């Protein structure tokens, strides 16, 4: 697992593996939209009918939601609530935690069911967990090298000032 305060790094290879997995989950669970968010509210990947969705806001609110229910869990002596389910008139949201640090969100309607989504999410979570384990290993191994190769190692004051012009 990644240390809680390390920089979270995503590489192309792992992102592609993740996208393949969530696209498969989208098909097999017959859902509308799937996205992955890190616990701090950063969107990692999304698939499905995302055109009309504000995915940045969704990511931030999902993380807030998980944080708030995590706080509730601790108050009653639980480690966390690993699954949340919100039922709407048409659309429903299934939220689960993968590998202890990433949040998997599945939005589905009457064409699927809670049972099917839960079943498929369980299987996909294992596969996604493996990718995040690999990513953690890669980040750890590459940590020192990355610090040297980091595109940010050579940021100048001018670069930063330019951002605000």
């Amino acid at each position, binding site marked *: 697992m990644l240390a*809680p*305060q*390390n*920089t*979270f*790094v*995503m*590489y*192309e290879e*792992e*992102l*592609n593996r993740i996208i393949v997995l969530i696209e498969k989950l989208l098909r097999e669970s017959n859902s509308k939209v799937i996205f992955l968010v*890190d*616990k*701090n*509210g*950063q969107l*990692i990947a999304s698939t499905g009918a995302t055109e009309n969705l*504000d995915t*940045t*806001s969704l990511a*931030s*609110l999902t993380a*807030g939601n998980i*944080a*708030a229910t*995590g*706080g509730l869990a601790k108050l009653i002596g639980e480690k966390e609530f690993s699954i949340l389910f919100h039922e709407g008139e048409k659309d429903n949201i299934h939220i689960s935690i993968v590998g202890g640090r990433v949040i998997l969100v599945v939005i589905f309607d009457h064409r699927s069911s809670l049972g099917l989504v839960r079943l498929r999410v369980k299987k996909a979570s294992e596969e996604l967990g493996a990718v995040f384990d690999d990513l953690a290993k890669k980040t750890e191994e590459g940590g020192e090298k*990355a*610090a040297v190769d*980091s*595109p*940010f*190692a*050579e*940021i100048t004051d001018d*670069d*930063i000032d*330019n*951002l*605000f012009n």
Partner: protein
Amino acid sequence: MSFINYASREINCKIVYYGPGLCGKTTNLQHIYNKSAEETKGKMISLATETERTLFFDFLPLALGEIRGFKTRFHLYTVPGQVFYDASRKLILKGVDGVVFVADSQDERLDANIESMENLKDNLEEQGFDLEKLPFVIQYNKVDLPNTTPIEELRELLNPGGVPDMTACAMTGEGVFETLKLVAKQVLIDLKKGGS
């Protein structure tokens, strides 16, 4: 905790505005939202009570431009300032990359400022952060009002460590972008060092 995405060449950082109730945290974000170009900002989310007091957080995603081919995005959050929302405040500090402390310069809020600053230190410690090592700036807000504590006194009480600070009037927007720039700069310098 910043998020570097090599696949989409993006870097995301989280900045939290902290401070006592009614000091102007949400007003800071609102000003940034109102004055930012359409293509650089996302939707601003405010989870507030019916009387417009922040209940959980405000959220504003902001894209600042590119550095070395990487898109830089800042996610700005505020905490609820009222004392009894402490559990929520702790949650929002998770994974923070930089903190802005918004102080209310009015005389009668001096104690509230000090209490909130102590609360910030405690809550950060609980998350494993050390305020002295985190990118941190202080904004003395509402300096346009008549009944303010002199800046020297505020500085002595709230900023003994001498972190970058500045005066502001968030209602008119004076000093708001300057404060954001101060903290963003520190966050990026921290990133350069390979820290955070």
